[in-house]
């Protein structure tokens, strides 16, 4: 049996029932398209998480006040005052693997410029904070150590605040705005960064000398949190240990005692986010795979019906000299053609859908070649697996009975 003839026979048999062939294919198309899309969505969201986390700085280390427990009840960290500005200096001066450290104060409040007002987030830090958080200046300059000493009323503002407070074309540098009813001079603006992995707008930020926020606005003597940069991502773990040792010493915590602070790295954040999105991807892909199986069963069902419907044709083919093997191969070939063409359409459709999703969601457009190759193999295997039984049934027909079948 010539393989090309076989293909012709199978193709012609399919073309005799175009509508049915297309509907059968649809199951596979949907199955493969959803697998490709889901894997693509998974990989894209993964990549976008990676991008966003590294936009925060992969070597970012955050030291937070520990949550308190009083008689077994967690009371949160708001009234914990364990971190001091002196801790920041201690870390900056003594930790070997730390390149920069800054105290961080968070506040929010009304920011007003003339008729415009915006409720934004205010962040107090030292001159290093901009570098630690991977902010870059767009125009103007950062505040100076001198400003910190003087509790100066100056600010560097993010793009969102620029847009909310100033008319287009107006240069905000040198203008005075009101932050929580305090006149503040804008000295610089930041380049846009977009949203972080939590969907928070990173451009909705107003950076000020920490002394100004701590003393003038909040009137507190502790520090909300400390942000530091490890000198590289590889030594982040060592840097964390150093910070812990230093702070335990400074806070006089005995071995085995409970820390009054908490150290987190971006690597941990990344790991957490990755495991969540990985779980989602697995789940979605599993659902998509089920639809692929359903598509395969659709093929099997149709092929099975086809064999019964075409019993007489099978008898005829046998009577004019088709071997049992030729009949088997013909039906197998039909189901493989259905599943492979369906698969190719599905792959294209899946790529298209992933592309559109990436446009809508603003994800990087990623198509996994592994997913494509895998789904193609799965298609062919589906065709063979689900086509085998009906084909076997067709080939085992007795030509005499098949010819007389009505």
């Amino acid at each position: 049996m010539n393989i090309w003839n076989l293909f012709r026979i199978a193709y012609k048999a399919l073309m005799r029932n175009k509508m049915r062939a297309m509907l059968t294919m649809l199951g596979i198309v949907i199955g493969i398209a959803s697998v490709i899309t889901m894997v693509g969505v998974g990989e894209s969201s993964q990549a976008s998480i990676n991008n966003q986390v590294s936009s925060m700085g992969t070597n970012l280390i955050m030291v937070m006040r520990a949550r308190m427990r009083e008689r077994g009840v967690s009371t949160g960290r708001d009234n914990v005052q364990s971190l001091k500005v002196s801790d920041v200096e201690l870390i900056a001066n003594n930790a070997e693997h730390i390149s920069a450290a800054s105290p961080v104060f968070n506040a929010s409040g009304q920011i007003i410029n003339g008729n415009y007002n915006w409720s934004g987030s205010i962040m107090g830090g030292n001159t290093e904070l901009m570098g630690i958080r991977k902010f870059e200046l767009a125009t103007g300059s950062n505040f100076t150590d001198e400003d910190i000493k003087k509790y100066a009323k100056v600010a560097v503002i993010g793009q969102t605040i620029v847009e909310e407070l100033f008319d287009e074309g107006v240069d905000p540098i040198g203008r005075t705005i009101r932050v929580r009813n305090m006149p503040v001079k804008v000295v610089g603006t930041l380049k846009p960064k977009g949203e972080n992995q939590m969907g928070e707008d990173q451009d909705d930020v107003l950076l000020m000398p920490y002394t100004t926020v701590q003393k003038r606005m909040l009137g507190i003597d502790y520090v909300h949190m400390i942000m530091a940069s490890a000198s590289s991502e590889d030594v982040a773990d060592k840097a964390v240990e150093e910070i812990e040792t230093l702070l335990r010493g400074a806070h006089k915590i005995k071995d085995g005692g409970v820390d009054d602070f908490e150290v987190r790295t971006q690597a941990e954040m990344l790991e957490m986010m990755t495991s969540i999105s990985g779980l989602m991807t697995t789940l979605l892909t599993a659902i998509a795979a089920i639809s692929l199986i359903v598509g395969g069963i659709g093929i099997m069902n149709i092929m099975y019906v086809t064999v019964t419907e075409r019993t007489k044709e099978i008898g005829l083919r046998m009577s004019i000299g088709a071997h049992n093997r030729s009949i088997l191969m013909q039906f197998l070939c039909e189901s493989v053609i259905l599943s492979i063409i369906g698969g190719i359409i599905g792959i294209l459709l899946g790529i298209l859908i992933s592309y559109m999703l990436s446009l809508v969601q603003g994800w990087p457009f990623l198509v996994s070649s592994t997913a494509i190759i895998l789904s193609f193999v799965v298609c062919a295997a589906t065709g063979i697996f689900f086509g085998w039984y009906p084909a076997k049934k067709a080939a085992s027909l007795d030509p005499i009975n098949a010819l007389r079948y009505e």
Partner: protein
Amino acid sequence: MENPIIKIDNIRRVFKVGDMEVHALKGVSFEIHRGEFVSIMGSSGSGKSTLLNILGCLDRPTAGEYYIDGLPVSRRSKDELAGIRNRKIGFVFQSYNLLPRTSALENVELPLLYNPAVSARERHERAKYALEMVGLADRMDHTPNQLSGGQQQRVAIARAIVNDPVMILADEATGNLDTRTSFEIMSLFQELNAKGKTIAFVTHESDIATFTSRTIMLRDGHVISDNAVNTQSAQKALEELPEDRDE
């Protein structure tokens, strides 16, 4: 004398139905020579169909030997039988058995698709030639539902002769056709026979058998008569038919 195309030698066929043994053929022997036009007759239950299945290599005898073109076929495998059917035998069925929604030409090409020795070009040309032989040169692209019963049977006959078989085996080939069309088909068979084709024609209609050159009569699994026939011309019979009044 030349070797016979068909030689069956004391063929028996026993079917087991539950505990019962049914003897469909109880020792049948005859020979068919090249160029003969033989009708095989018998009533229902005479073993006619069983004999046809064996002659067509669709079934194997329980005992006895069957030679086609000098080849013994009794103990061949299914695949070998399929090969013999492909190259040595052309079937014509009562219900035409054409593939639906498939052009006449492609229907005729079908047996050649199962013969790897035939190229696509040769297949095409032989199918065209076969359709010309049966007078359907202008209907090649028509699908079966665009053809009349007689034309469909002509396509089936073209399909039977396309691989140049040693024997055409017709099973009640006129059974679904009206008298006029039956005569036309018989006339076509006579033409093919005149061109040297060997034909075995299974029928239960005795007037159809008069167009053949020899009749083998079966009853209860035995050959009860095997006589030469005073052959009538189907063409002549066709001319003598009264004009259809309602057409």
